């Protein structure tokens, strides 16, 4: 019995001028799992997830979503399919408010004629929602929900991006280092959030340099190295220290049979 992967990428290549960022890499995400992606800086992690969601158009290779080949030309395509992404560079509009950013492209309208005819935004509802989500993430130092995002602290900004993705995803979520700028408390909330989301059946791709976090929440660990998928391991059957060794090239990856290319039968 083989389960169909949610995302399947094969032989993906992405070059920038003469820089090769992804070099015939493969990728699989299966239903209901948290797939961690780890690798050195510049290994190509961000590039590969961007290829999956259409933020970058790969030069070669094939990507299937739920078995169907896709050729996203913009992240809008992905988003329409219920895919949400927390970008490493956050992708927030600096001059806009927290609520504006959170609801960009899916704003709530006022009830009744004010919404349907006059297209008036329901600012109150959006702001309440935004505040609630930020509070859930423990970001209680945000003093005004109308602050422009550029006036937020680094961690507060990241919180906005994470909250946005988590609130709206239907098919799966990609999180590129979602806790990099977060404090201890706020990071903990994000890990809880990831587990929440998974428990709703929505799979997650988590890129992180934080090994304890990875080993705490991941079902499988995709190790990326020099633009390629180097190995996929079961975090329960490998030590953090070996994972780091494989990732940095200090150790060869185990043979494919000992890897975890597909999840264990649920």
């Amino acid at each position, binding site marked *: 019995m083989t389960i169909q992967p949610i995302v399947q990428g094969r032989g993906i290549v992405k070059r920038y001028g003469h820089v090769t960022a992804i070099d015939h890499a493969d990728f699989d995400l299966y239903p209901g799992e948290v797939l961690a992606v780890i690798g050195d800086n510049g290994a190509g992690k961000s590039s590969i997830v961007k290829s999956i969601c259409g*933020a970058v158009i790969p030069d070669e290779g094939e990507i299937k979503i739920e078995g169907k080949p896709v050729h996203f030309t*913009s*992240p*809008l395509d992905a*988003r329409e399919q219920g895919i949400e*992404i927390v*970008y490493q560079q*956050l*992708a*927030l*509009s*600096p*001059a*806009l408010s927290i609520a*504006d*950013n959170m609801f*960009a*492209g*899916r*704003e709530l*309208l006022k009830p009744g004629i004010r919404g349907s005819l*006059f*297209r*008036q*935004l329901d*600012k109150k509802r959006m702001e309440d929602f935004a505040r609630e989500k930020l*509070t859930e993430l*423990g970001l*209680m*130092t*945000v*003093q005004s929900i109308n602050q422009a995002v550029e006036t937020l602290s680094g961690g507060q900004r990241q919180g906005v991006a994470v909250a*946005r993705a988590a609130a709206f995803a239907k098919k799966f979520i990609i999180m590129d280092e979602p806790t990099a700028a977060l404090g*201890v*408390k706020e990071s*903990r909330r994000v890990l809880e959030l990831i587990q929440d989301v998974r428990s709703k059946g929505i799979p997650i791709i988590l890129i992180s340099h934080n*090994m*304890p976090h990875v*080993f*705490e929440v991941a079902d499988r660990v995709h190790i990326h190295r020099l633009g390629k998928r180097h190995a996929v391991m079961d*975090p*329960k059957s490998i*030590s*953090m220290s070996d994972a780091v060794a494989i990732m940095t090239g200090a150790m060869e990856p185990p043979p494919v049979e000992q890897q975890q290319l597909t999840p264990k039968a649920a």
Partner: protein
Amino acid sequence: MSETASKGQDYESSLSKATASVAAFEKRKGLVPQIQSALHATPALVPLVVLVLSIVTFGVLLGSKFFSPFALTLILQQVQIVGIVAAAQSLVILTAGIDLSVGAIMVLSSVVMGQFTFRYGIPAPISIMAGLMCGTLMGFINGWLVAKIKLPPFIVTLGMWQIVLATNFLYSANETIRSQDIEAEAPMLQFFGNVIQVGSARLTFGALFMLLLFVLLAYILNQTAWGRHVYAVGDDKEAAELSGIKTNKVIITVYMASGLICAFAGWALIGRIGSVSPTSGQLANIESITAVVIGGISLFGGRGAVMGSLFGALIVGVFTLGLRLLGADAQWTYLLIGVLIISAVAVDQWIRKASA
């Protein structure tokens, strides 16, 4: 979960006890902080302050000659065309674009309205519709080139400026349609020239249209999704795209709206000068950009309030009339307006800084 993992997190044990109360910083009271807050929340107040200051200054210098309903509504009449075009320009500049073709689109639209009526005998309302559609179409071409072909707005609209102007001359053969003929045969073309007289104050429909247009745009930009998207696109197009905004659609509709508004300006122009003249509006682009920038909208997009552009246009209008009334001759007026534009923005900057 693996043992390593839980070890890595043991210093987090206290987190469950962390306070859940929201941050409470000291709150500031008093007039100055309140003014500062207001200016912060409503950036268009800053050029408004400058406008009021300049009206007061000229009022003091010139007395009732300037500070009369007549003179003040005259300023409204004089800025109406630039004001309407500045509204269009504001939209485009908010998306980090620029529209050099505004004046050309305005004139071509008014020529279409006039020629359709007088050359082909089409009823005025239909000709007006045709003129409005013509403006929108020109805007669409601009927007399409900017959004889809990804050309710099400066180049696209510079090219369109030349193309539209040349088309206008080729099409109209530069023939003027006289005010008297329009009045006799198609007064609707002069609709915006109608006047509401209250005492010595004279409000033309065109001036009223300008004011209403700004109120409408302020509503749209602040209260609708499209409006927020305009800001997002201008702020950081890539981020907007990544966060799910259909940036191309926004850009195209913005340029279309700009074209449509310019066509309305063309209609208002007929009301203002009475006739249909293909030679008007040559400075509309630089004048509208000036109003927008004085009004505090950033040429880099995404920042500023559309109301500011109205105040910007009025500031220039106040200076121009005020200086003439003070008796400065044309060349000196020209020079002093240069000085005053810089000073107006310097004062604006200073208020902003004091309120930061």
